[in-house]
C-alpha cells in the first residue's frame, strides 16, 4: 500500500509505462508531456510537413499505448520502442501513399500539401540555409533521411537508431555518412559555419 504519491517527474519512462498499464492516469499524462511534442515534430518531418496528419498520428500512437500498454516490453528502452512504432506508422503511411499515387488520375497527391508546406516552411525557416537544408533532406531517399533525422534532429544515439530500425550500428553509420555527404554536396554554396 502506498502512502506517498509517486513523483512522476522523477520516474523513468519504463516505470511510467508500467504504471500506465495499471491504469494510472497521471503516469500517462507524464508520458504524454514528455513525448507528444517530439513525436509530433517527428511525424511532421516524416510526413511531408503535414501538421494535421502529424496530430492524427500522435493521437493514434498514444491511443495504442492506452489500449494495449502490454505491447511495450519493460526490458526495452521506451524511447527506442516508441520511435520504432512511430517509424513503422510512417512506413505504413508511405505504402498507403504509394497505392494512392498509383490509383490517382495523374494528380499529385501532395499538391495541396505542398502549398501548406510552403506556408509552414515560410513560418519556421529563419534562414536560407535552413530552407535549402530541409529541401535537400526531403529530396533524399527515406532510408537515409530517416536515419539522419533520428540522429541529428530527434537526438537519438547510433545504438538507439539501430534498435529502432532493427539494423546494425555499422549500417546506421554508413547511412548517416551517406546522408551527410549528400547534404554537404547540396549545400556547398552555403557556409553556415562562416556566417555564424
Amino acid at each position, binding site marked *: *500500500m502506498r502512502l506517498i504519491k509517486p513523483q512522476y517527474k522523477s520516474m523513468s519512462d519504463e516505470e511510467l509505462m508500467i504504471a500506465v498499464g495499471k491504469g494510472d492516469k497521471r503516469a500517462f499524462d507524464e508520458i504524454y508531456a514528455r513525448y507528444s511534442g517530439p513525436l509530433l515534430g517527428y511525424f511532421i518531418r516524416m510526413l511531408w510537413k503535414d501538421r494535421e496528419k502529424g496530430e492524427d498520428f500522435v493521437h493514434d500512437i498514444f491511443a495504442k499505448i*492506452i489500449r494495449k500498454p502490454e505491447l511495450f516490453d519493460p526490458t526495452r528502452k521506451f524511447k527506442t520502442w516508441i520511435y520504432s512504432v512511430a517509424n513503422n506508422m510512417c512506413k505504413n503511411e508511405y505504402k498507403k501513399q504509394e497505392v494512392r499515387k498509383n490509383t490517382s488520375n495523374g494528380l499529385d497527391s501532395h499538391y495541396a500539401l505542398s502549398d501548406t508546406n510552403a506556408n509552414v516552411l515560410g513560418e519556421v525557416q529563419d534562414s536560407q540555409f535552413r530552407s535549402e537544408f530541409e529541401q535537400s533532406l526531403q529530396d533524399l531517399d527515406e532510408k537515409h533521411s530517416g536515419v539522419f533525422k533520428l540522429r541529428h534532429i530527434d537526438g537519438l544515439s547510433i545504438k538507439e537508431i539501430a534498435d529502432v530500425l532493427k539494423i546494425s550500428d555499422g549500417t546506421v553509420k554508413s547511412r548517416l555518412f551517406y546522408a*551527410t555527404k549528400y547534404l554537404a554536396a547540396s549545400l556547398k554554396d552555403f557556409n553556415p559555419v562562416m556566417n555564424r
Partner: protein
Amino acid sequence: MERDVFEIVVEKEFIALSPEERIELKNYCSTEEEYNQLKQVLVGVNTMDWTNPEPKVETKEKLDVLFAQTHPKAGGMWYNSALAVIAPKDKPIYRQPLLQIAALALLVFLTVPFLQQNDTDDSSPLVAENSIDAGNEDVVKNTDVSGGIEEKKEDDLADTKDPQDEVSLPAVMTGFVASRGISNEVPVSAAESPTSNHPDGVFISEESIAYSLPASDQPDDVMDLLTTSF
C-alpha cells in the same frame, strides 16, 4: 558515454584528429575537404532551432476520454476511497464527516481548557471558604474561651451564694410546704437518674448506655419530678 564519430567531426578540426579517429573516418571521408564539408553540414544542423511543436489541446482531450473509457476504475488508491467516505463530493460541506469531525475536535480543543480553568476557579473559593471557616473556628474558640471564663465566673458566684438560695421558695410556698410536712430534700431516685450532656439526648451512665425514654415509659420518675416541683 562513448562519443560517436559525428560528435568528433563537429568538435575537432581535421588536423586535430588522432590516428585512430582518422582510421575510423577513412571509409567515409578521405580528404580534408570532404571532412570540412561534413563538419559544415553537421554544425549547421546542430545550430538550427529544432523546437518541437506542441500538439493541439483537442488531441489530449480525446486521449483523456479514451483513457477514461479504457480504465474506468483507474486511480483507486485506498486513501482516495477513504477521502470519498469522509469528504464525499456529492454532499454539502456542512454534512461532510471530515468537517464534522474537525468541528468536534475544535470544540473539544477549545472547551477543555475552559473546563480546567473553571475547576481551578471553583477550588479557589473553596480555599477562601475554608480560610473563612478557619477564622470562624478561631472566633468560636475565642468565644468558647470567653464563655468558659464567664461560666467560671458564674460558678465562682454560685459558690459564694448561700445553698439555701438554690431551693428558696416564695414565702407563701414555704408556708404551704411546712404546713403539709413536705421535706425540702430531693428524692434519691430523681437525684440518681442519669443525666445527659449529649446533644441528641443520649444518656450515658458508668455501667450501661441509657437512652432517653418517653415519659409514659417512666411514670415513677415523672411523678418524682412532679413531687419535687410541687
